[in-house]
């Protein structure tokens, strides 16, 4: 497999990973909805999942940009 082909197919893997990240982080945030919001650990977990969600979205956007599907 050439480097160009590796990068081309690898980029789809990254985009897919980004979407999976979005799904997992949304699920984790949903699970935390009933937890005590005054607990610092719960707040930190929620913040972490929000950052994870942003990473997943940015990961997918970057791949869409690379393939000129957007922008």
């Amino acid at each position, binding site marked *: 497999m050439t480097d160009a082909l590796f990068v081309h197919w*690898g980029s789809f893997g990254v985009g897919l990973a980004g979407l999976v990240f979005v799904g997992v982080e949304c699920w984790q945030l949903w699970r935390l909805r009933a937890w005590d919001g005054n607990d*610092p650990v719960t707040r930190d977990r929620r913040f972490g999942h929000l950052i994870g969600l942003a990473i997943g979205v940015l990961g997918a956007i970057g791949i869409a940009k690379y393939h000129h599907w957007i922008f």
Partner: protein
Amino acid sequence: MTSPAPILNPATLITASRFLFWPLYYWAIANHHVAVAVITVTVSALIDLLDGLVARRLGCSTAFGEVFDAVTDTLSHAFFWIVLVAFGRLPWSAGAVVAGLILTTTALRVMYGIRAGRTTNFRSYASERLVAFAAFVTPLGAAGIEPAFYSWSFVALLAITVVHDAKRMVWDPIPAATSTTGTTE
């Protein structure tokens, strides 16, 4: 409670093995072997998961191992980024901002350890996700996939996380010592 496991144990040796990837990665970037560079970074990131697993399975978690894992993680990602910046694969300005933010967060972690009065690793869920993001940004930079977009996205999220964690490390009460995991979970 800290377990009596020795400092040199299978988990810390696995953590230390990540340094062996540095020369291979440098060679791959310098000689434009994109696939080798990407695989090297990916395997290094997978080993980061493996050492924690081994530490838990073999019961050899130590406070040293936990901090050593965090330091190795930071140094490895810093090295991978510096090489990419040096070879023009990532924007140097983004690399400089990331270096500044990592130095800031390292100083804050040291301050946290001094406040706690023990060897301890500050647990941040957001930082753990950013480590995963860094493990993606590096191969993406090596492969030339939107390096500017991903590196500046990383800078933005890292800056937000440093500000968020700074409050917890400097002002918030420190939780009581619990069992160590050897690595970030």
